[in-house]
């Protein structure tokens, strides 16, 4: 496997805020790589630096061996990008938006025409090609942007929150496109998302990023396996008592989380009755109890001590700094 993207100690500061804090990793050619984290974690800043839109404060990165600072145009030619916010000209038609892009990237007229037809067919917008983008739905616009990002045959495609604000059906549809793209065209795809299921379903590998740092990087499967088995969520008016009651050797981990206790253990189905008995004998009240296979949400929680939603709330109110509730 060849390296498509190499990132070394990449850092970006905005005054006192360290948006991206000394990150390093490699992305292999043909990989779908996910940057997963809450809003404000530094995902978009990372993409902005890789796409030469923003200068790093320190550190370096190469795309296909081209340095992002030394050869901006070289990088720009070899990447396609779909921004988080829409970047289409709403007054132009789908075809004209594509054509504008093709001309900007100096694609000769005949090839341009052919590729635009092909790509509009791929994203199923061919019958709407002469309609003004203003009349398009959110999902159609996204698809058009993805098609546009591929027009100049980039070897790396950046997707910044590609399914943000789309309905579940459209999201599913887009995931299929993205997976097909990577498979059939051999394009390396980096996508940022704060949807855990999106990262899980699409990505070969996922880097979990929080407060500008990479806190975990592996395949979704390995990350979930690292949790230590299944996840049992117990709700109770007295969660602290549950934590105390469940100090058993066959339990991998117990975390209190508001009025919930999250328990990780192997073969939860077999142990669930033991847990209930244990809590009953110690007279700890139980409101509800649920078992599920670990998700990336649980991985995020285990690394940060918070759910991604709480983390976002924290970012919004700027209440307190990153704090781990559980150390291991």
């Amino acid at each position, binding site marked *: 496997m060849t390296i498509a993207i190499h990132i070394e100690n990449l850092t970006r500061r905005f005054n006192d805020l360290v948006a991206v804090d000394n990150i390093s990793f490699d992305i292999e050619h043909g990989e779908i790589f996910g940057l997963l984290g809450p809003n404000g974690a530094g995902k978009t800043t990372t993409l902005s630096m890789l*796409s030469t839109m923003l200068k790093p404060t320190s550190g370096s990165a190469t795309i296909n061996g081209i340095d992002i600072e030394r050869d901006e145009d070289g990088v720009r030619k070899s990447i396609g990008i779909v921004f988080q916010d829409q970047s*289409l000209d709403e007054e132009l038609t789908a075809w004209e938006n594509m054509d504008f892009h093709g001309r900007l990237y100096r694609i000769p007229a005949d090839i341009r025409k052919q590729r635009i037809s092909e790509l509009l067919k791929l994203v199923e917008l061919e019958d709407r090609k002469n309609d003004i983008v203003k009349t398009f739905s959110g999902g159609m616009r996204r698809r058009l942007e993805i098609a546009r990002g591929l027009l100049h045959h980039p070897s790396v495609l950046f997707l910044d929150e590609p399914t943000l604000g789309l309905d579940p059906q459209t999201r599913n549809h887009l995931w299929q496109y993205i997976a097909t793209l990577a498979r059939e065209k051999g394009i390396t795809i980096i996508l940022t998302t704060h949807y855990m299921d999106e990262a899980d379903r699409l990505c070969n590998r996922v880097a979990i990023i929080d407060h500008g740092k990479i806190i975990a990087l592996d395949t979704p499967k390995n990350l979930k396996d690292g949790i230590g088995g299944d996840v049992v969520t117990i709700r109770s008016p007295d969660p602290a008592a549950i934590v105390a009651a469940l100090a058993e050797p066959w339990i991998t981990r117990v975390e209190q989380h508001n009025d919930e206790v999250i328990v990780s253990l192997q073969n939860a189905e077999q142990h669930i009755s033991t847990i209930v008995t244990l809590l009953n004998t110690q007279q700890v009240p139980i409101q509800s109890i649920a078992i599920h296979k670990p998700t990336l949400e649980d991985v995020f929680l285990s690394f940060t001590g918070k759910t991604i939603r709480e983390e976002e709330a924290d970012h919004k109110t700027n209440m307190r700094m990153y704090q781990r509730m559980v150390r291991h």
Partner: protein
Amino acid sequence: MDIIYTIWLRNMKRYIRSKSRIIGSISMPLFFLLFLGFGLNSVVQLPGMGGNYIVFLIPGMVAMSVLFTSVFSGIQIIWDKQFGFLKETLVAPVSRLEIMLGQTLGGATTAVLQGFMILVLSVFIGLHVSNPAGFLIALGFMILIGISFTAFGIAIASRMEDMTGFQLIMNFVVFPIFGLSGALFPISSLPAWMGPVTLLDPLTYGVEGIRYGLTGVSQVNPLVCAAVIGGFTVVMTVLGAFLFRKIKL
């Protein structure tokens, strides 16, 4: 060159589709022409200028229409910034100078087209262009006004965050430029202390140049007009390109 053309082409497509904008920006100078022109024609005496106020006013209204359209076209890149389209252009492997020049030429073209429409309509209310050379001279000045003030709009837009300051710019910068230019009255009729102020206004030279082309009479030597508005065009283009290069998203 092909990149400049691409940006220009986009501007043209948007322009042709915005019927309301075309009509909207023709209406103001046209109403000025009709109401002020016909209203004041019998009252206003202009010694040494043919004595016809409507004919005096026409070059001013042509210039006005070019001025407002071009500043507006330049400032429009704020919308591209807000609606995200500017990112698409800025992340492409093209230089910002090419983007800026394409935008400037696009804006200037729409502005000159708008002015040209006023010019054509003016023929029905008393304009006689007997001399084709004069017409070309007027067109040349319209092009210079169009380029310089689109670049001026781009320069402003490059430093503005959003459209909230737009009204302020229009009222306190663009309107005084228009008012002091001698578009509505001969600059010699202003009080003596205001004379130098009108001569500091670059549009004065544009209006006088167009007036010379269309009517054969002007208060400022047409060569001086050409030199000043030409110089202003160069300065504005350089300034616009410089500020656009530093634009932040």
